C-alpha cells in the first residue's frame, strides 16, 4: 500500500474511493464490493464487507432496505456527520450499532473487523453498519480448570462473549470496561475491566501504560500481552494470572484487581498476581470451610514436595544417608547395589521420562491419552526397576512428585516449579543439603525481588504483621462471612465486600 494515503478524508467521488479500496484489497477475494444505485437520482452506493465475517441477512434484509427507503440520499450528501448519524439511526433501527466514518483508513479497519461499510457517492463520509457474525465456539466447560462444584461455563475466543459472561456475574454500574487495540497488523481488540471504586489506581495506571506501550506486529494470544506487560519476563514465575473461568475473573475484579480480556483468546489475564494467587482455586470458596482449609494446607505441603523431593533423594543417598532411619538406609543401600547409575542421574532420567510422558499426553488425542499413562507408569517405571536401571525408591519419589505437582491449581505456576526442580537436583548432586539450602536462599531472594505491577510478589508473607488480615486467606480460607475485607496489599478506598 505504498503511495496510498488512507488517512486523508473520504473523497466525494465514489469511483475514486472504490479505486483506492480495490488497490488496498488487491488479491483479496473475500472482500466483497457490492455496487448499486438507489433512489430516483440513481445515487451510486458501494457496499463493502468480508465474506465469512458478517451477518449478511441483517444487512441485506433489514439495514439496506430501511436505509434506502427511509433516508433521503440526496440530502445526505450535504449533511454533517452528526446529522447523517441521526438520520441513519432513525431509519436503520434493525442495526444496533452505527458509526459514521470520515477516512478510508477507518473504513479499512472496520471492514477487516467484520463490519459492513457503506460508501455514498458525493458524500464524503461512509457509514459503518455493525454486522459482525463469524462462526464461533459455544460457551463450554473450561478444559484446564475443572471443578467438582462450581459453574461449568468458560470463556471462548470472542471477547464480547467473555465480557458478557463477566457482566452476568457483576451487575454493578461501577464495573468499567475500556477498549483498546494492540498489534499493528492484527489490531487485536482488548478490554480492560475494573471496578471503579475498588481498583488500585496505581495498578490500573501501570497496566494501561504498559498496554499502550506495546509495540508488536500481531497479538495472537493473551500470552503475548502477558509477557510484554509483566515486571520480569525472565523470571520463571508468572506475575500475571490467567483464567478460563468467568467466576474467577469476577472474583478478581471484586478484590480490586484488573482483568484484561483479549479477543481470540479463551482466557483473560488478571493483574496483579502474587504468589498466593497461584495457590488458590475458585473451588476453595464453593466447598465447605474445614475441608477447604485442609486442602489448602495440603497444597502448601505439596509445594516443597514438588520442588525438593527428588533433590532430597539425591542429597540423602549421596551425601547424608544418616538422615534416614537405619532400616531404610540399609534397604536403600541394598536396592542400589546393582544399579549402574548414580542417584542424580536416576532422578534426572526419571524426571525427563515424566516430562516426556506429560508432553506426549498433551499432544495426543483423548481416546489414546489414557494409554500414555499406562505406558509411562507401568511399562517404563516397572520395567526400569526390573531391569535394574533405577531403584524402586526413585520411582516412588518421582511419581509422588508428579502427583503433588497436579495439586497446584495454576498450570503456569506448576510449570515454573517443575523447572526449578531440575536446578535443585543439580545443586543437590553438587553440594548435598547445603546446595539445597543455598538454592532455597536464591529462590527466596528472587521471589522477594519480584513484583507484580508494583506489588511485592510474596505479599503478605513479607510483611506478615502489617498484612495479618491478608494472611487469613492464604494457607487457610476464612469463612465466607468473615471475608469482609479486601486484600490490604492493594490499599483500596473501599475495603468492605459483603458476603460474596
Amino acid at each position, binding site marked *: 500500500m505504498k503511495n496510498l494515503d488512507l488517512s486523508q478524508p473520504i473523497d466525494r467521488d465514489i469511483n475514486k474511493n472504490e479505486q483506492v479500496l480495490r488497490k488496498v484489497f488487491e488479491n483479496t477475494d473475500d472482500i466483497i464490493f457490492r455496487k448499486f444505485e438507489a433512489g430516483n437520482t440513481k445515487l451510486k452506493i458501494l457496499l463493502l464487507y468480508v465474506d465469512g465475517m458478517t451477518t449478511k441477512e441483517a444487512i441485506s434484509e433489514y439495514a439496506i432496505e430501511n436505509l434506502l427507503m427511509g433516508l433521503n440520499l440526496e440530502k445526505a450528501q450535504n449533511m454533517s456527520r452528526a446529522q447523517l448519524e441521526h438520520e441513519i439511526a432513525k431509519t436503520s433501527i434493525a442495526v444496533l450499532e452505527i458509526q459514521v466514518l470520515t477516512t478510508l483508513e477507518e473504513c479499512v479497519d472496520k471492514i477487516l473487523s467484520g463490519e459492513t461499510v457503506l460508501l455514498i457517492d458525493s458524500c464524503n463520509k461512509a457509514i459503518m453498519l455493525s454486522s459482525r457474525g463469524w462462526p464461533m465456539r459455544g460457551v463450554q466447560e473450561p478444559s484446564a480448570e475443572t471443578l467438582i462444584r462450581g459453574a461449568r461455563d468458560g470463556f471462548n475466543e470472542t471477547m464480547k462473549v467473555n465480557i458478557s459472561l463477566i457482566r452476568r456475574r457483576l451487575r454493578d454500574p461501577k464495573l468499567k470496561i475500556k477498549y483498546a487495540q494492540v498489534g499493528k497488523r492484527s489490531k487485536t481488540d482488548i478490554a480492560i475491566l475494573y471496578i471503579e471504586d475498588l481498583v488500585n489506581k496505581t495498578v490500573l495506571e501501570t497496566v494501561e501504560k504498559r498496554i499502550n506501550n506495546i509495540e508488536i506486529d500481531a497479538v495472537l494470544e493473551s500470552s503475548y500481552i502477558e509477557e510484554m506487560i509483566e515486571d520480569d519476563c525472565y523470571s520463571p514465575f508468572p506475575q500475571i494470572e490467567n483464567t478460563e473461568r468467568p467466576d474467577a475473573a469476577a472474583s478478581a475484579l471484586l478484590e480490586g484487581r484488573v482483568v484484561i480480556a483479549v479477543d481470540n483468546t479463551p482466557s483473560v489475564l488478571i493483574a496483579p498476581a502474587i504468589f498466593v494467587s497461584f495457590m488458590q482455586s475458585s473451588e476453595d470458596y464453593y466447598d465447605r470451610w474445614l475441608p477447604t482449609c485442609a486442602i489448602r494446607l495440603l497444597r502448601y505441603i505439596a509445594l516443597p514436595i514438588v520442588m525438593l523431593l527428588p533433590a532430597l533423594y539425591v542429597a540423602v543417598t549421596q551425601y547424608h*544417608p544418616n538422615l534416614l532411619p537405619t532400616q531404610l538406609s540399609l534397604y536403600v*543401600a*541394598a536396592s*542400589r547395589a546393582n544399579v549402574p547409575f548414580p542417584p542424580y542421574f536416576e532422578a534426572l532420567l526419571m524426571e525427563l521420562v515424566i516430562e516426556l510422558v506429560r508432553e506426549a499426553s498433551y499432544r495426543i488425542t483423548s481416546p489414546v491419552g489414557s494409554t500414555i499413562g499406562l505406558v509411562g507408569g507401568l511399562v517404563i517405571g516397572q520395567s526400569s526397576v526390573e531391569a535394574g536401571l533405577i531403584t524402586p525408591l526413585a520411582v516412588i519419589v518421582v511419581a509422588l512428585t508428579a502427583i503433588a505437582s497436579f495439586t497446584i491449581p495454576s498450570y503456569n505456576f506448576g510449570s515454573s516449579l517443575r523447572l526449578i526442580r531440575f536446578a535443585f537436583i543439580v*545443586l543437590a*548432586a*553438587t553440594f*548435598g543439603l547445603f546446595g539445597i539450602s543455598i538454592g532455597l536462599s536464591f529462590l527466596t531472594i528472587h521471589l522477594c525481588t519480584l513484583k507484580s505491577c508494583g506489588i511485592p510478589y510474596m505479599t503478605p508473607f513479607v510483611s506478615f504483621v502489617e498484612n495479618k488480615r491478608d494472611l487469613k486467606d492464604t494457607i487457610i480460607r476464612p469463612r465466607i462471612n468473615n471475608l469482609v475485607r479486601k486484600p490490604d496489599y492493594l490499599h483500596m478506598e473501599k475495603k468492605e465486600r459483603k458476603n460474596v
Partner: protein
Amino acid sequence: MKKLILCLLIFSIVFLSGCWDSVEINKREYLFAVGIDKKEDKLSFISEIPKINEGSQEERLVYSNDGESFADFYHLNYLHSDKVISDRLMQVIVLGEDLARDSERMKRIFDEIQRSPQMNRRVKICIAKGRAEDIIRMEIPSNPIVGRFLSDMLVKLKRESHQDIFTFDEAILHLGKTGIAIIPLVEINEKSLKIERAAIIKEYEMIGLLETDELEAVMLLLDPSNANIRNINIETEGAAISLDAVDVIMTDDIRLEGEKLMVDYYVTLYCYIDSFIIGNNSLEDRNFINRVKEESIKKLSEISENTLDKLQNTYKADLLRIKDKLYKYHKSEYEKIRDKYDEIFAQADIKVYYKMQIKSTGLVK
C-alpha cells in the same frame, strides 16, 4: 551481556566444583556396633557391619583390627575395604572390662567420641563383662545384629529406669559433673546377652560392680518417679507373697554440719500384690497386711543398708549424686569441703526411711 557472564560463572562454579563429599549410599559400610578391648599397648577394635542385601535374612560382617584410636581404626579399615566406613549410624559402643579399668585409655576414648562431629553423642554405651569381642561376636538367633539388639535393650532399660545411663552423652555429663557414672554391664547369657548389673566408673576407671538389687536400690533413690521395684518377695507367717511397687515418692534432706554430712531419704512406696497363695484369705486381714509391709520394708532397708555400705566403704563412690545436690543447693558449705569430699562421704550418715502402702491386691481379694 553481564547477565550471561554471571550465568556462565554460576554454572561453571556448580558444574566444575562440588561433589567432594559425594559417596553413594551403597558404597558405604555402616558400623553398627564397636567393641574395644585393651591389647598390650594398643587397643583392639572389633566392629559389626550389617551386610547390605535385599534378602529377608539379616547378615553381618565382623571386622577387627588393632589401633591407637577410632581414627586409626577407620584409617586401617579404609585401606582394607572397598567401601567407605561410616560411623554415623553407630548404635552402641561396648568397652571391654580390662579397658574400663584403665583410666588413661578410657579418657582418650571418651575424648575422641566427644570431639567427633560425625559420631552421634547419643550412641549407646555399655561395659562388657570380660572381653567386648565376645559380646560383638555373639550370635543371637532372634536378632543377628548385636548392635541393634543391645541398643533396643538399653533404650528399654533406661525408659523403665532399670539403668541410669544408656548413652555416651549421659556418661560424659555425669563423669564431668560428679566424676562418677553407672554404666550398664553386658554379659553373655547362654545364647543371648543380658544386662542385669552395672559397672561403677569413677574418674574414668571401673572400680566395681553393682548387683541387680543394689542397682535397683540406687535407682530408687536416683530417679524415684520412674523407678520400679519389681518383685519384693517375702514370706509372712509361712506364706510367700510377692509385691510390686508401682509409684514411688521420695523426699530427701541433705545437711552438712561442718564436716559431717547427714542425708535422710524418705521413700513412700505404693505397692500392688502380684501373687499370694490361692485360697488363703489373709489379705483381708489388716494386721496381716501390716506385717507384710513390715517384712517388705525390712527387706528393702537391708538391701539399702548393704548397698550404701558398699558405696561408702568399699568404693567410696557417691552414686547418689549427693555431691551434685550439695553444690547446687548448699554451695557455700560445699566449697569448704570440696577437696576432701570422698572422706566426708565415706563417713556420712545416710539413712533411708521406707513407708509402704498397698494400693491394690489385683482383681481378687
